[in-house]
Protein backbone atom coordinates (compact mmCIF):
# COMPACT_ATOMS: atom_id res chain seq x y z
CA UNK A 1 0.00 0.00 0.00
CA UNK A 2 1.23 3.46 -0.84
CA UNK A 3 -0.17 6.80 0.26
CA UNK A 4 0.75 10.30 -0.74
CA UNK A 5 1.87 12.56 2.06
CA UNK A 6 -1.34 14.57 1.86
CA UNK A 7 -3.67 11.56 1.85
CA UNK A 8 -1.80 10.25 4.90
CA UNK A 9 -2.44 13.60 6.61
CA UNK A 10 -6.13 13.44 5.71
CA UNK A 11 -6.55 9.89 7.04
CA UNK A 12 -4.61 10.61 10.22
CA UNK A 13 -6.63 13.78 10.83
CA UNK A 14 -9.95 12.06 10.17
CA UNK A 15 -9.41 9.12 12.52
CA UNK A 16 -7.84 11.19 15.27
CA UNK A 17 -10.54 13.85 15.10
CA UNK A 18 -13.29 11.23 15.43
CA UNK A 19 -11.73 9.78 18.58
CA UNK A 20 -11.05 13.21 20.08
CA UNK A 21 -14.62 14.33 19.39
CA UNK A 22 -16.20 11.29 21.02
CA UNK A 23 -13.95 11.27 24.05
CA UNK A 24 -13.69 15.00 24.75
CA UNK A 25 -17.33 16.07 24.37
CA UNK A 26 -20.59 14.74 25.80
CA UNK A 27 -23.32 15.88 23.45
CA UNK A 28 -23.53 14.71 19.82
CA UNK A 29 -23.83 18.23 18.43
CA UNK A 30 -20.72 19.36 20.31
CA UNK A 31 -18.90 16.20 19.22
CA UNK A 32 -19.47 17.07 15.57
CA UNK A 33 -18.35 20.66 16.08
CA UNK A 34 -15.24 19.67 18.03
CA UNK A 35 -14.37 16.92 15.54
CA UNK A 36 -14.62 19.35 12.63
CA UNK A 37 -12.52 21.86 14.59
CA UNK A 38 -9.80 19.28 15.27
CA UNK A 39 -9.81 18.10 11.66
CA UNK A 40 -9.47 21.66 10.35
CA UNK A 41 -6.63 22.36 12.78
CA UNK A 42 -4.76 19.17 11.87
CA UNK A 43 -5.01 19.72 8.11
CA UNK A 44 -4.62 23.49 8.25
CA UNK A 45 -1.66 23.25 10.61
CA UNK A 46 0.06 20.76 8.33
CA UNK A 47 -0.43 22.98 5.27
CA UNK A 48 0.87 26.03 7.12
CA UNK A 49 3.89 24.09 8.41
CA UNK A 50 4.58 22.80 4.90
CA UNK A 51 4.58 26.29 3.42
CA UNK A 52 6.73 27.53 6.30
CA UNK A 53 9.34 24.85 5.57
CA UNK A 54 9.21 25.72 1.88
CA UNK A 55 9.75 29.41 2.72
CA UNK A 56 12.68 28.62 5.00
CA UNK A 57 14.33 26.56 2.29
CA UNK A 58 13.89 29.27 -0.33
Amino acid at each position, binding site marked *: *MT*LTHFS*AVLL*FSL*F*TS*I*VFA*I*TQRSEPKMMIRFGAFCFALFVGGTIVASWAMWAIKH
Partner: protein
Amino acid sequence: MTTNIQAPARPGETTAIRSGKKTGVAPGLVLFAGWLIPGAGHLLQRMWIRGLLLLASIFGMFVIGIALQGKVYQLGTGDPLDMLGFAGDLGAGGLYLLARICDLGHASVLVATADYGTKFIVVAGMLNLIAAVDAHSLATGRKQS
Protein backbone atom coordinates in the same frame (compact mmCIF):
# COMPACT_ATOMS: atom_id res chain seq x y z
CA MET B 1 -12.82 25.88 26.24
CA THR B 2 -15.21 23.61 28.08
CA THR B 3 -14.50 19.99 28.90
CA ASN B 4 -16.79 17.12 29.70
CA ILE B 5 -14.97 16.08 32.87
CA GLN B 6 -16.84 17.41 35.81
CA ALA B 7 -15.24 19.24 38.69
CA PRO B 8 -15.75 18.06 42.27
CA ALA B 9 -18.95 19.25 43.86
CA ARG B 10 -18.79 22.69 45.38
CA PRO B 11 -19.68 23.17 49.08
CA GLY B 12 -23.42 23.03 49.53
CA GLU B 13 -23.98 21.34 46.20
CA THR B 14 -25.04 17.72 46.21
CA THR B 15 -22.88 15.26 44.34
CA ALA B 16 -25.92 13.65 42.72
CA ILE B 17 -26.71 16.85 40.84
CA ARG B 18 -23.25 17.28 39.37
CA SER B 19 -22.31 13.68 38.68
CA GLY B 20 -23.33 11.82 35.55
CA LYS B 21 -25.54 8.77 35.51
CA LYS B 22 -23.84 5.40 36.00
CA THR B 23 -24.44 2.90 33.23
CA GLY B 24 -24.61 -0.21 35.43
CA VAL B 25 -21.66 -2.01 33.86
CA ALA B 26 -18.59 -2.75 35.99
CA PRO B 27 -16.06 0.03 35.32
CA GLY B 28 -13.10 -2.36 35.48
CA LEU B 29 -14.65 -4.64 32.90
CA VAL B 30 -15.41 -1.67 30.66
CA LEU B 31 -11.82 -0.45 30.92
CA PHE B 32 -10.34 -3.86 30.12
CA ALA B 33 -12.76 -4.57 27.27
CA GLY B 34 -12.15 -1.12 25.81
CA TRP B 35 -8.41 -1.73 25.86
CA LEU B 36 -8.64 -5.25 24.44
CA ILE B 37 -11.07 -4.41 21.62
CA PRO B 38 -11.34 -0.81 20.41
CA GLY B 39 -14.78 0.62 21.16
CA ALA B 40 -15.90 -2.40 23.20
CA GLY B 41 -16.14 -0.32 26.37
CA HIS B 42 -18.75 1.91 24.73
CA LEU B 43 -20.52 -1.01 23.08
CA LEU B 44 -20.89 -2.73 26.48
CA GLN B 45 -22.74 0.36 27.67
CA ARG B 46 -25.03 0.26 24.62
CA MET B 47 -23.50 3.31 23.01
CA TRP B 48 -23.57 1.71 19.62
CA ILE B 49 -22.69 4.61 17.34
CA ARG B 50 -19.83 5.84 19.50
CA GLY B 51 -18.47 2.33 19.90
CA LEU B 52 -18.62 1.55 16.20
CA LEU B 53 -17.04 4.87 15.25
CA LEU B 54 -14.20 4.26 17.71
CA LEU B 55 -13.78 0.71 16.45
CA ALA B 56 -13.67 1.84 12.81
CA SER B 57 -11.27 4.71 13.51
CA ILE B 58 -8.76 2.86 15.68
CA PHE B 59 -8.94 -0.40 13.72
CA GLY B 60 -8.62 1.53 10.43
CA MET B 61 -5.63 3.46 11.69
CA PHE B 62 -3.88 0.33 12.92
CA VAL B 63 -4.54 -1.60 9.70
CA ILE B 64 -3.32 1.28 7.54
CA GLY B 65 -0.18 1.41 9.65
CA ILE B 66 0.43 -2.29 9.05
CA ALA B 67 -0.34 -1.91 5.32
CA LEU B 68 2.20 0.91 5.10
CA GLN B 69 4.82 -1.57 6.39
CA GLY B 70 5.08 0.21 9.71
CA LYS B 71 7.26 -1.10 12.50
CA VAL B 72 5.64 -3.01 15.36
CA TYR B 73 7.77 -2.34 18.43
CA GLN B 74 8.92 -5.13 20.71
CA LEU B 75 10.06 -5.13 24.31
CA GLY B 76 13.64 -5.86 25.22
CA THR B 77 15.64 -4.04 22.58
CA GLY B 78 17.24 -1.77 25.21
CA ASP B 79 16.61 1.39 23.18
CA PRO B 80 14.58 3.95 25.20
CA LEU B 81 12.78 5.13 22.06
CA ASP B 82 11.80 1.56 21.27
CA MET B 83 10.42 1.20 24.79
CA LEU B 84 8.27 4.29 24.30
CA GLY B 85 7.10 2.94 20.96
CA PHE B 86 6.29 -0.37 22.61
CA ALA B 87 4.23 1.41 25.27
CA GLY B 88 2.28 3.21 22.56
CA ASP B 89 1.75 0.06 20.52
CA LEU B 90 0.62 -1.88 23.58
CA GLY B 91 -2.27 0.57 23.98
CA ALA B 92 -3.90 -1.06 20.96
CA GLY B 93 -4.53 -4.13 23.14
CA GLY B 94 -5.86 -7.04 21.14
CA LEU B 95 -4.76 -5.53 17.83
CA TYR B 96 -1.16 -5.39 19.04
CA LEU B 97 -1.28 -8.93 20.38
CA LEU B 98 -2.78 -10.12 17.08
CA ALA B 99 -0.07 -8.31 15.14
CA ARG B 100 2.63 -9.98 17.22
CA ILE B 101 1.05 -13.43 16.97
CA CYS B 102 0.61 -13.16 13.20
CA ASP B 103 4.04 -11.54 12.82
CA LEU B 104 2.58 -8.50 11.08
CA GLY B 105 4.50 -5.30 10.51
CA HIS B 106 8.21 -4.92 9.96
CA ALA B 107 11.05 -5.07 12.43
CA SER B 108 12.69 -2.01 10.89
CA VAL B 109 11.63 0.90 8.69
CA LEU B 110 12.80 0.33 5.13
CA VAL B 111 10.92 2.90 3.05
CA ALA B 112 9.93 6.51 3.73
CA THR B 113 6.19 5.89 3.97
CA ALA B 114 6.78 3.05 6.43
CA ASP B 115 7.67 5.70 8.99
CA TYR B 116 4.14 7.02 8.59
CA GLY B 117 2.88 3.49 9.16
CA THR B 118 4.87 3.24 12.38
CA LYS B 119 3.32 6.46 13.64
CA PHE B 120 -0.16 5.30 12.64
CA ILE B 121 0.27 2.15 14.74
CA VAL B 122 1.57 4.00 17.79
CA VAL B 123 -1.13 6.67 17.61
CA ALA B 124 -3.83 4.02 17.17
CA GLY B 125 -2.63 2.49 20.44
CA MET B 126 -2.73 5.79 22.29
CA LEU B 127 -6.14 6.70 20.91
CA ASN B 128 -7.40 3.30 22.07
CA LEU B 129 -6.22 4.07 25.59
CA ILE B 130 -8.07 7.41 25.51
CA ALA B 131 -11.22 5.63 24.32
CA ALA B 132 -10.94 2.98 27.06
CA VAL B 133 -10.50 5.61 29.78
CA ASP B 134 -13.46 7.53 28.36
CA ALA B 135 -15.61 4.40 28.57
CA HIS B 136 -14.46 3.94 32.17
CA SER B 137 -15.44 7.53 32.98
CA LEU B 138 -18.88 6.91 31.50
CA ALA B 139 -19.28 3.73 33.55
CA THR B 140 -18.37 5.44 36.81
CA GLY B 141 -20.60 8.43 36.07
CA ARG B 142 -17.66 10.83 36.02
CA LYS B 143 -18.62 11.83 32.49
CA GLN B 144 -22.14 12.56 31.33
CA SER B 145 -23.32 10.23 28.57
